[in-house]
């Protein structure tokens, strides 16, 4: 990537007694980027955010803001906007006072503060709510006040700690769109923390996935989904089928893997020795079912165990000898007007197939 990163984390480590909350976290965040820290609870993502914000000091590692070392700076000097889970609005201040707080702390003149508060509240469509108290607002409105408060003083960075978790589904997608727009319009760098995979995928330029205090993989949503670096990523982002096997031979990019009694084809740009133990990961939606499976490079026969109707798709679990249960999702509605995968009945034999490109090879068991 180009230029000086907006924020650069180098080998950040945080311990709480014997527990290592964050282990050797490094990442560069580009100006204007929307970066999401994604991970299950306890993965260390909130600790990373807290270290970036300056609320907890790292035990090791450095933080650089546009090339300048800010590791020793207190939170007030870093001047990062922050939106908290549950918003953390000041309950004893009006909406306008909440939004003005950061500007007032910077000693801006009164007239300028009033002007800026008006502009920012209009930006989040809350003009007219200046004199309300936070408790008089709905959840969505409070969330927008929190956002307005965080961007009012034109911070270097905007940190968002699971800001959408308290909102219902519909409001959530609305706020997600607003966040994207803000990120684009203001050119402000966003660091967003969430445990929601879909949210991370749909919002971010890049996603940093954390697990057990470590950075498991960082990349664009497509990178992570198409080319997971390890089993954790493949299982955490969306669903995957995993098969353990040994490499039989490699011809060009194409690798033949022995899984149980089956010989499965996959693609690997890497050179793999025959006999190497690998894990094959396969996304359920890349598996064709029924007649469509016959023309694929890999075809297996299975017994249909369960069929779950999900509206837009149907999840099918089939028992395949030598592999075990294979999960696939198929369209519930075929383009020719037929019933799609609804045609398959439970307990019946079914063919499943996928191309060599569909599977990803991981060199770990």
């Amino acid at each position, binding site marked *: 990537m180009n230029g000086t990163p907006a924020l650069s984390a180098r080998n950040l480590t945080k311990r709480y007694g014997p527990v290592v909350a964050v282990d050797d976290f490094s990442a560069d965040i580009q100006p204007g980027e929307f970066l999401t820290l994604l991970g299950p609870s306890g993965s260390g993502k909130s600790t990373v955010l807290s270290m970036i914000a300056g609320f907890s000091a790292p035990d090791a590692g450095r933080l650089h803001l546009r090339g300048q070392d800010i590791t020793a700076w*207190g939170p007030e000097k870093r001047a990062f906007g922050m939106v908290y889970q549950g918003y953390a609005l000041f309950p*004893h201040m009006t909406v306008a006072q909440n939004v003005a707080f950061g500007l007032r702390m910077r000693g801006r003149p009164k007239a300028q503060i009033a002007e800026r508060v008006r502009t920012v509240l209009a930006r989040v469509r809350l003009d007219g709510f200046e004199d309300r108290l936070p408790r008089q607002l709905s959840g969505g409105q409070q969330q927008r006040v929190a956002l307005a408060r965080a961007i009012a003083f034109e911070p270097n960075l905007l940190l968002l700690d699971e800001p959408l978790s308290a909102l219902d589904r519909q409001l959530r997608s609305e706020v997600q769109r607003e966040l994207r727009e803000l990120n684009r319009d203001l050119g402000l760098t966003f660091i967003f923390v969430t445990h929601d995979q879909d949210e991370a995928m749909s919002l971010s330029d890049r996603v940093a996935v954390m697990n057990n205090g470590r950075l498991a993989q960082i990349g664009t949503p497509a990178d992570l989904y198409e080319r997971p670096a390890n089993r954790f990523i493949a299982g955490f982002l969306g669903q995957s089928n995993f098969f353990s096997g040994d490499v039989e031979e490699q011809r060009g990019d194409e690798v033949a893997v022995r899984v149980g009694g089956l010989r499965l084809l996959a693609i690997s740009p890497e050179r793999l020795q025959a006999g190497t133990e690998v894990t094959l990961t396969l996304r359920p939606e890349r598996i064709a079912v029924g007649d469509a499976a016959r023309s694929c490079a890999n075809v297996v026969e299975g017994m249909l165990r369960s069929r779950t109707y999900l509206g837009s798709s149907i999840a099918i679990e089939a028992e395949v000898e030598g592999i075990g249960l294979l999960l696939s999702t198929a369209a519930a509605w075929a383009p020719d007007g037929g019933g799609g995968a609804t045609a398959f009945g439970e307990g019946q034999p079914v063919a499943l197939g996928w191309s060599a490109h569909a599977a990803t090879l991981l060199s770990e068991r």
Partner: protein
Amino acid sequence: MGETKSAAARTGLLLAAPALLLLLLFYLFPVGRVLSLSVLEPTPGLGNYEMLFTSSGIQAVLSATARICLITTAIAVPLGYLMAYVITIGSRSMRTFMLYGVLLPLWVSALVRSFVWVTLLQRRGLVNQFLQSLGVIDQPLPLIWNEFGVIVGMVHYMIPYAVLPLLASMAAIDIRLVEAARGMGASRGRAFREVFLPLSMPGIAASAILVLILTFGFYTTPAILGGGRTMMIAQYITTQILVLPRWGVGAMLATVLVVVTIALLLLLSRFFDPSHSRTER
């Protein structure tokens, strides 16, 4: 609907009846009897209450009581605030340790604690001897048998009562609000003044009123540490009833005490509204 509701209310009243009856019989009735003496003894009328405006002795006792109680409150609440704050923001082990430190004195009787202060503050007490041995003072300081001694003893006694409502109020403050203020450029002091302090105001008010109410009724501590020279209302009432005996004057002052306490309690109840201090989510 209305019928079932009133039936439920009747059942509730019936269940509460024994307790209410007991209260009425053994508490409200005798208290009412004693207080009624203030308008019956020695002759029916408001004569006793006139003394509030005419008797310089009673006025002196009342003003001394008010002064001592207000000074005690003004010292105990800030000290309590400091302790509650340290307990609130402190580490887990620190919190437990300090909480015991605050609560332990509650289990030691006021009598014992007063005599402990006597040994510390008297003319040949530890404090005077220490200061004299250092050469800070020539003559022992009059630390006891005056208002100073009474206030020292009362502040000490009142600290736990000042701390507890403050602790409850501070526990309800979302500490991330202070973090949020810091993140927006407020220094530690500024974040405290602008966010934590205003949010703990209900706790301060509750603590101050509670301490004030409790100090009005103090008897043992002023009796011992005041040495008879500093007379507060409770002690004065005792003298009126047990020594003289002037039941009417004693009952009148008791009535005044009860009325002031009830008024303060009403004020106090306003600050225990949880919606005041909770963070909205």
